[in-house]
């Protein structure tokens, strides 16, 4: 079983798709339960995987089969510390997303099928060790997302979906080009990521261009300034569960791609361009935070805050890479970045779930349209408080650990950038508290005097994330132990 | 020719004329509804001819199926495919100058053939007359079982096909 654990993990959700398609269109309950059961099994497998995973810095649970022999394309899976957190997070978020989609009544069959397909694609991206396979899974995520936003989205869903699609497609094309360049420059021709990393010298001639191409592909997903404008639209229009997946996992694919592909294969280019990563990360943080403050729509606000928070990941990577030669413990920043990926997945997931909860009840997300909800929905307010304080980086909650490590790592390498970035934390507190004040505190808007409290199902989606947030906040070592060695090794590769 | 033969002959020709005459109305009437109703008479005439051929079951079946089934279908089709309130449904003929000679040639050829052929008719004494229902039943269930089953399947298929074709189309 261990030898095929990853394959099982990846394809578990897609097993449910034919089952769901066979179910009668009207039996919504059965479809949802099927989806929940299969994602639940996947989650259980992922937890088991994490339990037996120990970070050695090397790839584990490897599966390697020839796929298209002519082009030396392999079905090559494996995980290390960089991916393990995402491999855990993806089924978790997807599992919770199934429950968050319980209210979907339009085209239930298609919705869940697409969601499960998306799940498979994302899992594949995090497990693939063959560039071609990676690319295939990468593209698999694109289409379901497009439809999920475009069909089940809000009023401007078409615009948002197309914007998302175009941005991502441009990135994909660039990635494809770089991938082919790697393939033809490698000797023997291969898509194997580990092999490509070994042959990094072959790519130095066009390293900068390749890095920029890959970077754009990944930056669109992150999303890094100035490729970020699709995100607020996509988030705003997407249904709750899709926003959760989008923020929780899809954005991480960009950062993951940089870590998995750019860093080991293009060490030299990465090193020379790391300073720009830092700059863009800082721009993301500050720019995103400032933009967030101007938002009036709750989901848009959270979306922009995601942009701001993903900036920490970029900053962490940038400083770790640029500091790899000079600073002894550059890995701290990288740890922070990876942890921030995981934390942001949980926290933004919570935030979007919470936004969905209020949207389900009030049917709008206009921040100024609410007021005094704390009185009416204390439990909901408590969860929201937890989420926003975690997002603000309150010590003792997970957000702090990631951000703190990023800053700590960054400070030595690039002090001005760090100072500006730390100021982002102040802004974060500003916009979240402002939003909190406007929505939850103050006199109760009489329009929402009969708003119902968050229900059991919604709590069920929130509590696991909340527990993770608290646990990682007060005891982050287990998580760090899972990733640290791999990151150290990654930096060794970068330092070559 | 005995008296009864005369009567039979008269009746026969009445039926023959009925058949041909109504068939002519079918062919030449400019009103398709008239054609359809004339077809009723044609079928009746043919049923009568069957009676003369001592095929009583066939005669009844002819009326049941042709009149009760096919003709009603045709009438329905006519009424469904025309503006039904228009009483004078024109049914114009095209190129009769082309069709008429052809048909006449065919008819001439056939007549010539019928007249010229030396039909190996069985002797009239041997022409037995008895109820045919039972015999047809045995023939269908015995000798012609396979064609019968095939035709059943065909009928079923046609039924389903027709129902499929005629079902109301879903509005997109």
């Amino acid at each position, binding site marked *: 079983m261990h030898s095929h654990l990853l394959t099982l993990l990846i394809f578990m959700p897609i097993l449910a798709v034919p089952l769901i398609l066979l179910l009668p269109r009207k039996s919504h309950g059965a479809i949802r339960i099927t989806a929940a059961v299969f994602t639940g099994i996947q989650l259980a497998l992922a937890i088991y995987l994490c339990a037996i995973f120990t970070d050695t810095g090397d790839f584990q649970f490897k599966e390697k089969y020839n796929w298209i022999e002519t082009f030396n394309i392999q079905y090559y899976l494996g995980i290390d510390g960089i991916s393990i957190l995402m491999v855990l997070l993806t089924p978790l978020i997807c599992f919770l997303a199934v429950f968050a989609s319980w209210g979907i009544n339009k085209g239930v069959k298609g919705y869940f099928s697409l969601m499960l397909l998306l799940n498979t694609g994302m899992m594949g991206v995090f497990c693939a060790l063959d560039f071609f396979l990676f690319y295939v899974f990468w593209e698999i995520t694109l289409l379901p997302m497009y439809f999920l936003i475009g069909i089940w989205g809000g009023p401007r869903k078409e615009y948002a979906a197309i914007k998302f699609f175009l941005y991502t497609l441009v990135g994909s094309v660039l990635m494809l080009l770089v991938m082919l360049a790697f393939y033809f420059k490698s000797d023997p021709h291969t898509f194997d990521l580990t092999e490509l990393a070994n042959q990094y010298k072959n790519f130095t001639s066009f390293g900068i261009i390749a890095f920029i191409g890959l970077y754009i592909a990944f930056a669109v997903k992150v999303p890094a300034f100035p490729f970020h404008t699709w995100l607020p639209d996509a988030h705003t229009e997407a249904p709750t569960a899709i926003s959760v997946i989008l923020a929780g996992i899809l954005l991480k694919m960009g950062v993951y791609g940089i870590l998995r592909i750019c860093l080991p294969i293009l060490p030299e280019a990465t090193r020379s361009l790391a300073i720009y990563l830092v700059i863009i990360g800082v721009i993301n943080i500050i720019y995103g935070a400032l933009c967030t403050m101007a938002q009036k729509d709750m989901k848009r606000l959270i979306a922009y805050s995601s942009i701001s928070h993903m900036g920490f990941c970029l900053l962490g990577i940038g400083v770790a890479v640029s500091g790899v030669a000079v600073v002894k413990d550059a890995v701290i920043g990288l740890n922070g970045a990876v942890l921030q990926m995981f934390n942001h997945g949980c926290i933004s997931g919570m935030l979007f779930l919470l936004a969905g909860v209020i949207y389900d009840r009030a049917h709008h997300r206009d921040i100024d349209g609410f007021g005094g909800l704390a009185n009416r929905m204390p439990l909901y307010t408590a969860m929201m408080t937890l989420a926003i304080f975690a997002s603000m980086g309150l010590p003792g909650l997970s957000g702090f650990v990631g951000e703190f490590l990023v800053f700590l790592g960054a400070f030595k390498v690039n002090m001005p950038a760090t100072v500006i970035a730390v100021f982002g934390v102040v802004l974060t507190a500003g916009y979240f508290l402002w939003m909190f004040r406007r929505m939850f505190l103050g006199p109760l808007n009489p329009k929402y005097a009969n708003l119902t409290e968050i229900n059991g199902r919604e709590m069920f989606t929130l509590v696991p994330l909340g527990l993770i947030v608290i646990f990682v906040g007060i005891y982050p070592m287990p998580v760090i132990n899972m990733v640290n060695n791999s990151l150290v090794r990654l930096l060794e590769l970068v330092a070559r | 020719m*005995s*008296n*009864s033969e005369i*009567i*039979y002959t008269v009746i026969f020709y009445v039926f023959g004329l009925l058949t041909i005459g109504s068939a002519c109305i079918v062919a030449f009437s400019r*009103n398709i*509804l*008239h054609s359809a*109703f004339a077809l*009723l008479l044609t079928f009746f005439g043919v049923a009568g001819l069957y009676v003369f051929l001592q095929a*009583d*079951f066939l005669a*009844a*079946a002819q*009326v*049941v199926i042709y*009149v*009760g*089934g096919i*003709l*009603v279908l045709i*009438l*329905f089709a006519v*009424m469904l495919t025309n503006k*039904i*309130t228009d*009483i*004078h449904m024109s049914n114009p003929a095209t190129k009769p100058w082309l069709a008429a000679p052809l048909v006449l040639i065919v008819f001439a050829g056939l007549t010539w053939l019928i007249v010229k052929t030396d039909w190996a008719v069985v002797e009239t004494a041997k022409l037995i007359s008895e*109820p045919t*229902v039972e015999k047809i039943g045995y023939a269908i269930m015995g000798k012609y079982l396979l064609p019968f089953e095939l035709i059943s399947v065909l009928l079923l298929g046609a039924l389903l096909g027709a129902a499929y074709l005629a079902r109301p189309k879903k509005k997109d």
Partner: protein
Amino acid sequence: MQELIIWIQKFVIETTGWGFLKTLPIELWYILFMFVFGGVVLGVVMFFAGVASYAERKVAGHIQSRMGPMRVGPHGLLQFMADGIKLVMKEDLIPAKADRFLFKAAPYVLFAGTLALFAAIPYNQLFGKPLAITNLNIGLLYVLAMSGFVVVSILMAGWASSNKWSLLGGMRSAAQIISYEVPVAVSFLAIIMIAGTMNMFDIVSMQEGGIWNWLIFRYPPFTCFVFLVYYVAAMAEVNRTPFDIPEAESELVAGFHTEYSGMRFAFFFMSEYANMLAVSAIATVLFWGGWHSVLPFSILPEPWVVLEGMGWFAGKTLFSVFLMMWLRWTLPRYRVDQLMKLCWKVLLPIAFANVIAIGIWIALT
């Protein structure tokens, strides 16, 4: 048949003493007989139609706690005469846009078709011979064929009226009759299986000797079901409530005969009652033992047993007619889809189930 004609021929020649009549071919006698008998049947049917219309109104009135016709004659007994005179005297209107020929032809065709049904029905037996216009050995098939004939004439009337209500009524009627012909045919099939013949006289003959020999009680309960299916379908075929969709006055004014008036309307009217009578007669023949008594023996002595038979036949038939009237004033009208559903989803499966069950029973015994 032949013997009956010969007997009549002999009787006529003997009583009149006109020997030359013998020279006429038997077929001519036959034709003459048919005309006479047909005339008798026509008269009876017309008379019956009148009486039935009166009876129907009386029954309706009493069921609704009213009196019904009371003015013309004692207890309104002559009402039907008055109606008939009125209808005959009434102006015969033809719509301007109507197809005149078909418009005129339709009631006659319909009436002819209905009347043709009576040709095959054996009313009684005379010296062991059937008293019928013709004793067809494909009698049941003939009955079916003739009821199909009715459809065409109804369509003719509906279309020729050049009135959309008439046309719709006609088309509904046609659809209904064609549909309900199927359960009727299948119930006939069950009878044919039991009797082994399509000859109606033979079928009646089988049922001699008491009520328990009637076909309705032959293979209980299947034959009862067969009867039920037949009876329901037959009611639908004659467009009687609860199956009077084609005439649904609240929707279609009066269906295919909306535009008719005067004598032509009278023909439609009569043909409905004639049809009722025919259907009832067929029910009597097929299920209720025809002219046979309830008891295994006849009450009246030999020559008068014919009268007794007539009485039984008429009684049973009229009871059936009364039953139809009774049902009419009991049940509301079906909707079109319910009607079709009843036919195809209820009657037909039951009829087939009956056929299969009876077939198995016959095979087993």
